[in-house]
């Protein structure tokens, strides 16, 4: 998985590419831990994301919880496969999906 970071002021966009699973989720967690402090608008671009596992969902959930305190978070470019996972797990209810 590759993570493309784009930061403008207090807004951060993370474009993920590949599979977000048990092996790659810690990478995303490390990036978030490092970058998220002053961010008020966090955007995940999932256009090129192929798969997300429960470990990936966990990282998304903790990002969502942190952003609930300091700003907004949204997820864009969600494909069919990822959307089904979000719906099955109920994440579609707690995430802002555009």
């Amino acid at each position, binding site marked *: 998985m590759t993570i493309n970071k784009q930061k403008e002021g207090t807004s951060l966009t993370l474009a993920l590419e590949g599979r977000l699973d048990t092996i790659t989720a810690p990478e995303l967690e490390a990036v978030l831990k490092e970058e998220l402090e002053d961010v008020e608008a966090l955007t995940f671009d999932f256009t090129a994301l192929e798969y997300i596992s*429960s470990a990936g*969902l966990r990282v998304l*959930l903790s990002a969502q*919880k942190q952003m609930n305190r300091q700003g907004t978070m949204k997820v864009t470019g969600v494909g069919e496969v990822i959307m089904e996972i979000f719906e*099955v797990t*109920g*994440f579609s*209810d*707690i995430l802002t999906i555009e």
Partner: protein
Amino acid sequence: MQNPIQPQAEEKGGTRIRRSLAFNIIGAIILLLLLFGLISGVIGFVSFTAAFKKEYAETTWHMADTATLLVNGDHLDAYLAGEEEEEYQKTREYLDSYCRRIYVSLIYVIEVDRSDYGRFVSVFNSVYNDVDDTEYKEWELGHPRDTTNDEYRRKYRAIYEEGAPYETVYRINTTDGQHPHITTMVPVKDSAGEVAAILCMQRPVRELEDARRPYVVKIAISTLLLALLSSAAAAVYIRRQFVGPIQQISAEATRFARENTVLEPLGEVSRLHEISRLAASIDTMESDMAESIRNLTAITAEKERIVTELSLAQKIQAAMMPHVFPAFPDRHEFDVYAAMDPAKEVGGDFFDFFLVDDDHLCLAVADVSGKGIPAALFMMASKIILQSCAMLGQSPAEILTKTNEAICSNNQEEMFITVWLGILEISTGRLRAANAGHEYPALKASADGRFALIKGKHGFVIGGMEGIRYREVDVQLEPGAKLFLYTDGVPEATDASGAMFGTARMTDALNEAADGSPEEILTAVRRAVDGFVRDAEQFDDLTMLCLAYNGAGEPPAAAEIHQTEKTEKEEDPA
């Protein structure tokens, strides 16, 4: 059994090397010394000979020069003409006695033909054959003789024409049987100072050989002695400073390789700093390796302990789940079979089924986010809370809500769990279920139906967020109905190319085995997954549960599913 053989073989090899090393060095020393002796002998021999010849020639010159004082250079022609006979006889006697007194073989005075120095006539000739055991005959006055030897002719000319004080002809290394000798020539001058004749003196050089032989013998003996002494000293030195220490180092390295223990360090085994450094390197290597071995032993022990604990944990986890089948041998209304196959030693998946009371069977399948030990710990806690809530006789939605609250209150690591939980009313076949973010179950509602996913609206995962309310789904099971529950490890099983098994392949596999027992159905799905994944590593826990509903002893009714969404717990998470 190998050890007694190995060192012997090594010692043999060591001896061979030691021998050749000492042999080579000592041999080289001896060879060099002999060469040195030979060269110094030759140089000494040559310079000794040169010095001797020079000294001998000068002494002979002085002797010959003294002899000329006896000869009257003005009367030589008169002697040849037969005049002044008395003076001639007197001079001849003087010369004869002088010849004997100074112990030389020949003294002769000659007048050389100055046109080409090719002949001369003898004036005086004293012979003393006893000196060198010779057989010369005295030349009489006026005896003519040709000079064919160019060296003599050149030297005669040098004395007559170039004013040379003396000339010497050496016959030292003679080959014609003559004894080694020198002939010294000096000018005989008349009163006007002109050269009138040449006086030649022949003197043996036996002394040279006599002096030279002991010199050569001395050189040879002293060189041999020096060679012997040096090689003995070299042997001792090599053994003490070189071979001995190397043997010691090699023995220590062999011992260390066998025993892996550090004893006394080698320290200063030699004054040669290359060898000392080698010994120091061996000492350092030993202590470093011993340290590494200790660390490795500790790490290995720790790893073994972890493996042991993991296998114990695996047993505990497996024992926590129903594992005796058939689980309810005395209940003819239903049959349940389940299996969990963790990707690692312990897993985050679990299944559970138990009778809440005589008429209610609770079924659950869950999947914790993540894998391994953290997931397993979280799974254990979740399972216990879930079962405790279920035993209170509450509805599936209430059970999930309570469980969520209990887990959220103490969830630092933000782990979560997806759960499908259903309660079957055995007497009626009514199944009420709630879903906290879990996979859609597959249901075959009646004996002649087909497996299909129950796609109801889902609640959020448990442990993710507080205050979540869950909705329930009602399903009516007819006799012959089958329910298949699973975790995402089944549809998301991945082959080597990265393709997933998917729910479509899963339902196909289910329908192919639809008439089988729950155990047969699980085996069929597992076989389909394995056939799809082939050699790829199992990445996620694989958990399946199958319920077969046989009805409460009543005749089978028509299939009827009504899937209603309850509205009493409507509150959605925001």
